[in-house]
């Protein structure tokens, strides 16, 4: 074993930092897109919208059954073709690996968030709906002001746990040769040959971020439960 030399890490840090920023940006975008789409998916199923609810259900079952890497490969191949059709230009529109990653993670996470919210919707007490009716709230107002806030509050620990998994999963964009934190480390390791130092450093970074976030979620779980809700 060669002696470890962590001074190389200091030189490499700006590049690793930009990789980390990409990982975080991907996590943030996938979280926002996934939550918005996932909430829509969950509501479509909740209201049993004919045909569309079944399509959504099929999409979610499919996405949850196949590995994320295969989903990335699918989208890398499909998205340019679909965009080509949509834009009417006939041929595929090349959009590059970065955009593919953002689109894929958003659509992929939507399936997981949607399941969490769908189950959360079912967990809301019937009395809440009845009370809204008694107050003559419209369906839109009922969901926007009464039901969804409760669902999000009850489900927030699970949503955040899922987001920590999402952050870890962004490392899979390695298969698209993107420069996220892992991609940056692996590219540097190929250049300078110090792969042990490079990988050990990113292990520490991933570990620190994920465990800090997990501790935060654990605290939240204790503090943020709806007072008086059934335990």
């Amino acid at each position: 074993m060669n002696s470890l030399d962590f001074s190389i890490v200091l030189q490499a840090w700006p590049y690793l930092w930009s990789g980390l920023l990409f990982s975080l940006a991907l996590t943030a975008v996938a979280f926002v897109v996934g939550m918005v789409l996932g909430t829509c998916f969950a509501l479509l199923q909740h209201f049993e919208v004919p045909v569309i609810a079944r399509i959504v259900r099929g999409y979610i079952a499919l996405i949850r059954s196949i590995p994320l890497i295969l989903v990335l490969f699918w989208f890398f191949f499909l998205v340019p073709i679909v965009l080509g059709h949509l834009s009417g230009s006939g041929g595929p529109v090349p959009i590059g690996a970065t955009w593919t990653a953002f689109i894929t993670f958003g659509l992929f996470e939507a399936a997981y968030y949607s399941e969490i919210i769908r189950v959360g919707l079912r967990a809301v007490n019937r009395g809440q709906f009845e009370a809204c009716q008694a107050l003559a709230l419209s369906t839109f107002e009922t969901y926007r002001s009464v039901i969804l806030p409760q669902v999000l509050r009850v489900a927030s620990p699970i949503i955040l746990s899922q987001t920590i998994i999402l952050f870890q999963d962004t490392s899979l964009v390695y298969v698209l040769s993107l420069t996220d934190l892992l991609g940056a480390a692996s590219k540097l390791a190929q250049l300078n040959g110090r792969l042990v130092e490079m990988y050990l450093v990113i292990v520490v970074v991933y570990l620190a971020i994920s465990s800090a976030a997990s501790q935060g979620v654990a605290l939240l779980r204790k503090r943020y439960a709806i007072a008086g809700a059934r335990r």
Partner: protein
Amino acid sequence: MFAVLFEQTADGQRYIDWLLSGLGWTLALAFFGWWIAFALGIVVGIGRTVQNRAVAALARLYVEIFRNIPVLVQMFLWYFVLPEILPTTLGNAIKQIPPPWGSFFPALICLGLYTAARIAEQVRAGIEALPRGQAEAASALGLGGYLTYRHIIVPQALRLIVPSLTSEVMGIYKNTSVALTIGLMELTAQARQISEATFQTFTAFGAATLIYLALALIAYQGMALIDRAVRIPGTTRTEDDIAPNLAEEVQQAGSLPAGMEIAK
């Protein structure tokens, strides 16, 4: 659409043989990885619930480390970093393991240890969900710590957590695809190779997707059968067809241990 799968490849096989060989590696990795994860997960899960502080802290450390590092990074640690930090002769011996096995064993260890951390949290949740009276009754009957865990606590806890283990089973077979990054030609890797060789991307990925769907169905139905067979009479389960443990968890949010989140 799938006709191309029966055409000859450059190496004299048919493309479907590539897919089936990939499926074989995927299944081998998931199957053997599962038993490593299950055995180790039970041990660590028990470790988290025992009185001995040192043991509990060690078990917690294990779970924190293996759950908070992305599985792909762990894969690289076992494959690239481990041979480098071992003594040179041993490291070189590891690097010289011939091709499929040189990737298979690191992937097996990686998936086994990673999934074990997740299973440990489920086991702990199961143990903590048991009424205290179970352990107290065992103690009143004169059973020691080992016998209490062996005959009273663990059997009941395992029966309780079958639904949540379903998502771990689904997780481990999907995570086998991460092994393609260290060169194991499992199902997804073979699908990509067929797509590159034939340019029939729809067919190649479609076939792999159908196989994964079938595996998911088998895993799900198999676990449902096991659940029905070992369910503790009198306990009720939610009839949720896609995320059995999630329904329970959301309803009781706030009270359940941190481990019971959904797996990918």
